[in-house]
C-alpha cells in the first residue's frame, strides 16, 4: 500500500475539516437565524456540491485556478505558483466540495435548539454572539461532531475533484482513492485490496464515533436520574 498517499489523504482531510469548521459554524448560524431571499440563495449554493458531478466542480476550479482567468492569475501571483496540481489547490477544492457536509448537520443542529432557550438568554441581556456561544453551540455540540466527521470522511473519499484538479502526483496530490484506482489499473489486486480496506476502516470508524458518542452521553443522563 502507498503510505505516502495515506499520509497525504489524512493531511488533506484534517486540514479541510479544520478550515471547514471555521467557515461552516458562522455560516450555518447565519443560515439558521437569517431571513430573506439572500438566505435561500446561500443555502442553494452551499448545497450545490451535493448534486453537481465532482468532475464539473473540478473542471471549473481548474479553469479558475489556471492562468487563463483573472482570479487564477491573482492566485498565481499570491502563491507564487499555479494552484492547480498543488496541495493548496487540492485543499481549496476539498473545502468547497465538502462544504455542504459540514454545513448541513450544523444547520439542523442549530435549528433544533428550542427557541425558548434563546429567548431565556436574550431576556437576561445576552447579545446574539453570547447566546450563540453559551447556549446554541453547547446545546448543538453533537452536530459539531457530526459535521467534522462527515467533512473528514467525505474528503477522504473524494475522487473526481482530486483527479481533475490535482492530477496524480505522488506525495503532492496522489490521495488514497487515486492510488486505489492506479493499483486496479495496474492489475495489482492484492495492494488494491489493502488500500480499499484502509479506506473502509477510516469511514467505518468515523461513523461509529458519531453513533457511539450519544450512547455514552445517555449513560450520564441515567446517573443524573439516580441522584435525583
Amino acid at each position, binding site marked *: 500500500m502507498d503510505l505516502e498517499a495515506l499520509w497525504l489523504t489524512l493531511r488533506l482531510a484534517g486540514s479541510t475539516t479544520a478550515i471547514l469548521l471555521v467557515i461552516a459554524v458562522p455560516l450555518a448560524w447565519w443560515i439558521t437565524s437569517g431571513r430573506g431571499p439572500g438566505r435561500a440563495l446561500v443555502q442553494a449554493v452551499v448545497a450545490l456540491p451535493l448534486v453537481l458531478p465532482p468532475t464539473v466542480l473540478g473542471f471549473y476550479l481548474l479553469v479558475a485556478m489556471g492562468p487563463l482567468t483573472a482570479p487564477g492569475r491573482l492566485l498565481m501571483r499570491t502563491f507564487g505558483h499555479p494552484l492547480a496540481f498543488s496541495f493548496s489547490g487540492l485543499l481549496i477544492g476539498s473545502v468547497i466540495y465538502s462544504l455542504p457536509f459540514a454545513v448541513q448537520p450544523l444547520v439542523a443542529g442549530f435549528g433544533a435548539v*428550542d427557541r*425558548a*432557550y434563546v*429567548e*431565556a*438568554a*436574550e*431576556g*437576561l*441581556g*445576552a*447579545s*446574539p454572539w*453570547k447566546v450563540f456561544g*453559551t*447556549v446554541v453551540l*453547547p*446545546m448543538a455540540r453533537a452536530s459539531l461532531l457530526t459535521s467534522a466527521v462527515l467533512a473528514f470522511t467525505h474528503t477522504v473519499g473524494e475522487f473526481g475533484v482530486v483527479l481533475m484538479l490535482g492530477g496524480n502526483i505522488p506525495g503532492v496530490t496522489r490521495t488514497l482513492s487515486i492510488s486505489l484506482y492506479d493499483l486496479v489499473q495496474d492489475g495489482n489486486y492484492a495492494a488494491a485490496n489493502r488500500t480499499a480496506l484502509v479506506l473502509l476502516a477510516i469511514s467505518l470508524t468515523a461513523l461509529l464515533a458519531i453513533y457511539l458518542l450519544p450512547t455514552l452521553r445517555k449513560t450520564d*443522563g441515567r446517573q*443524573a436520574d439516580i*441522584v*435525583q
Partner: protein
Amino acid sequence: MFNSLLTLDIRHHVGAISLDVAFSLTQPWTVLFGPSGSGKTTVLRTIAGFVRPDAGYVIYGSIEQVLVSTDERIFLPPYLRPVRSAAQTSKLFLHQTVRQNVAYGMAWQSHPDDEREVLDEVLGLMRLTTLADRDTRQLSGGERQRVSVARAVAAAVTYDGIDKALLLLDEPFGGLDGVLRDELAIVLRDWLTRWKIPVLSVSHDIGECYLLGAEVVRMAEGQVMEQGPVEVVLDEERRRLMKQLRTV
C-alpha cells in the same frame, strides 16, 4: 414613588387574540392580572422585545427611551433593552450549574467582589444556597422555577444603565406551594424595593396580588379593564370569591 416609568400603547393580532392595550407604570411593583388567554404574556413579551407589535409604542425610563415604535420604525432587539425577564417556562441552561445559571446575566464583571456578593444574596433569597452547585437536571419543577426567577433578578440588579432595568416576571410563583410562595413573594418584594428595581409581573392569583400589595392592571380579552391599587381593582373579585367559598 416613580414618575411614569413605562408607557405602553400597542395593538397586536396573534391567532384568536386581538390585543389593544395601553397603560403606564408608576409603582414599584405592578401586576398584570387576568384570566389565561387575556394577552398578559404577549404584553410582557412585547416589552421584552420578543414580539413585534402590529402598531404602537413602548417608552421606558427617565430618558424616555423608545423600545419600540411602529410610527418611528424603531425596534430595539431584546439585548439592547433595559429590561430583564423570566418566562413562565423555566428554560434553564442544562450544561450549567444552578450558580452558573443565576450568574449568567450579571453585568458587574468589573467588580467581581460585588457581583459575588449579590449572587450569594440572590441565591439565599430564593432558597437556592444549598442547591448552588447542583446540575440543573437534578432539580424539581419548583426549584427550576426559583432558579429561573433568581436568574432574572440577578441580571436586573446588576444591570448597568442610566435607569434601573425593568424586571419582567411571568407567573414567578406559579409552580410553588402556598407557604413557600408567600414567603418568597414578600422577601423578593422587599429586597427589590431596596434595590429600587421596578417590576411588572403576570398573575391570575388574587392572593399573590394582595400579598405583594401591588398596583394591578386588570386585563380581559386583550384589553385593560381597570388599573389601580389592588384593594380597589380586585375588591369585587375578592368578594365574589369569598361568597363562593361561603356557599361551598
